[in-house]
């Protein structure tokens, strides 16, 4: 039925914690998305070489200058080169995206396996997850950061907590259907140990949807970090992240809109590319999805 197009595997939609709906991009769009992502990742990795200036170097005489040789996108309110800050900012933003995806998938996988396999634990775990999912993720994240202090670790924790219930739900749903399969019954019948059943027979079923979910979490985490920084509840403002650069640009928006525009464009391209690649990965890993939701 039509509701199938809101996949549990893709319920993430970023910081907003709303549902994410499937999209079937064409191969040309996926290629463009992949190229964009490679460029963004490569420019973040090689920021030290590519950046024309030191992203932290203050130059009051150069403040809010337009683009010029050596400063292609101009400078910010402290005279720092905008392009260099965007390139370096990608490092932290992408690191948060990948880190949040890996950690939340790992924790969610463990809890989801337990919840899906042990009926006695399921009721308790799922009530806790339902409760966590009812809290708007951005409110929970800014509350965690404000109480624990703004550091990379705190921001990561604040982003990961709201993502875990979504992974748990996904893993649980996969395990619930897989545990009724004959091969699991056979494994139980021949006396396989519990860790072995979970590890060798149930967990591999979760890999495909988790890879897809991981990409959505990555995009969502990058967006949440940007929102947290933008609201003033993110990583130390001196550290260049895409969110921090935009947050600093707010006060000067009417004089120099490019301080928000350029990091916003790069952030949007990164999130769009990751989301499109997530959709393409889902189609590649589960060809049935291609037929579903097309209405044919």
């Amino acid at each position, binding site marked *: 039925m039509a509701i199938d197009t809101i996949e549990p595997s893709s319920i993430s939609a970023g910081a907003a914690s709303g549902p994410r709906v499937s999209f079937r991009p064409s191969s040309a769009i996926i290629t463009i998305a992949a190229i964009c992502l490679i460029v963004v990742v490569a420019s973040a990795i090689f920021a030290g070489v590519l950046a024309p200036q030191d992203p932290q170097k203050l130059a009051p005489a150069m403040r809010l200058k337009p683009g010029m040789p050596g400063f292609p996108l101009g400078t910010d309110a402290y005279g720092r080169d905008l392009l260099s800050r965007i390139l370096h900012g990608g490092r932290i933003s992408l690191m948060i995206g990948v880190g949040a995806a890996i950690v939340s998938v790992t924790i969610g996988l463990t809890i989801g396996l337990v919840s899906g396999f042990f009926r006695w634990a399921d009721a308790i775990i799922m009530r806790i997850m339902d409760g966590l999912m009812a809290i708007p993720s951005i409110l929970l994240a800014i509350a965690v950061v404000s109480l624990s202090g703004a550091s990379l670790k705190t921001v990561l924790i604040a982003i990961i907590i709201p993502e875990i219930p979504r992974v748990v739900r996904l893993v649980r749903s996969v395990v619930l259907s897989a545990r009724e399969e004959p091969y699991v019954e056979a494994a139980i019948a021949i006396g396989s140990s519990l860790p072995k059943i979970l590890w060798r027979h149930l967990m591999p079923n979760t890999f495909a949807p988790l890879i897809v979910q991981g990409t959505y979490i990555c995009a969502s985490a990058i967006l949440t970090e940007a929102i947290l920084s933008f609201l003033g509840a993110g990583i130390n403002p001196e550290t260049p992240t895409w969110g921090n650069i*935009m947050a600093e640009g707010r006060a000067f928006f009417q004089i120099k809109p490019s301080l928000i525009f350029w990091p916003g464009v790069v952030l949007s391209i990164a999130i769009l590319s990751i989301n499109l690649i997530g959709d393409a990965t889902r189609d590649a890993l589960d060809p049935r999805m291609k037929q579903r939701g097309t209405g044919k």
Partner: protein
Amino acid sequence: MLGYLIRRILAAIPVMGVVALVVFLLLRLTPGDPAAIIAGDLATPEQLERIRTSLGLNEPLHTQFFTWIWRILQGDFGVSLISQVSVIKMIGQRIEPTISIALSTITVAILIAVPLGVIAAWKHGTWIDRVVMSLSVLGFSVPVFVVGYVLIQIFAIEFRWLPVQGFRSITGGFGPFFERAILPTMALSFIYIALIARITRASMLEVLGEDYVRTARAKGIGEAGVLMRHALRNAAVPVITVIGTGFALLISGVVVTESVFNIPGIGRLTVDAVLARDYPVIQAMILLTSGLYVTVNLVIDLAYTLLDPRIRY
């Protein structure tokens, strides 16, 4: 139906219980003295003691929890640590802009997204479909604050058609209210339009392949009648569902949008409370928005029976 309603309300109790526990433990599980965390590094011993007394931090943990829950059930969310005003009173003073923006966003989003989704499904595979789908992908990827600033740049700074920021109450006249509400509504509805348009399209595509649609066409009913009366009514359940589940998007979006457009609503109140570590306000906002989310989704579940009489609880 009554039995289902009671079951659903009972099921919401543990969910809200977990929310309350998380909100309560958030401060208590943070390393360090909660009073010092709230008051900051420059607090005097008197200020720390006042916060401890106000939050009941000198009591055992379980006593603190049950006392706190009991007060909340009576509608007492405490007093702001900064302004010393009742939290409920503060929220009451700031709720109007938020409700105005949220309601106008939902209205605009539905009015734009549902027709877009219907047309995209009707013209499936054509350029119209591709444009609608591309816009909806963009809606998910461009952060609301970037959309907000782009709109300000275009409509307020370049063309000078609308004010840059601010809010005017509707009681002071519709004109000033309207011109300040346009840009925040447009910014906030972008992602909501993306979500609803996509679901409407998918749901309509499903329904348009059904036998009763073919029958309606065979009877000679006009295309508009087929789409609106036969297809859209049957495609409505997933659309209404996503409006409910997307409610979380709206809450997060409101927090950001109010900051971009300098709107004195409860989103801005929350951000200010977080930056000032005004914990009673943060607690109240998380509890109330979570409660609202649970309630909205409960109401939507019950609305299914009105939309689709085949659904019986």
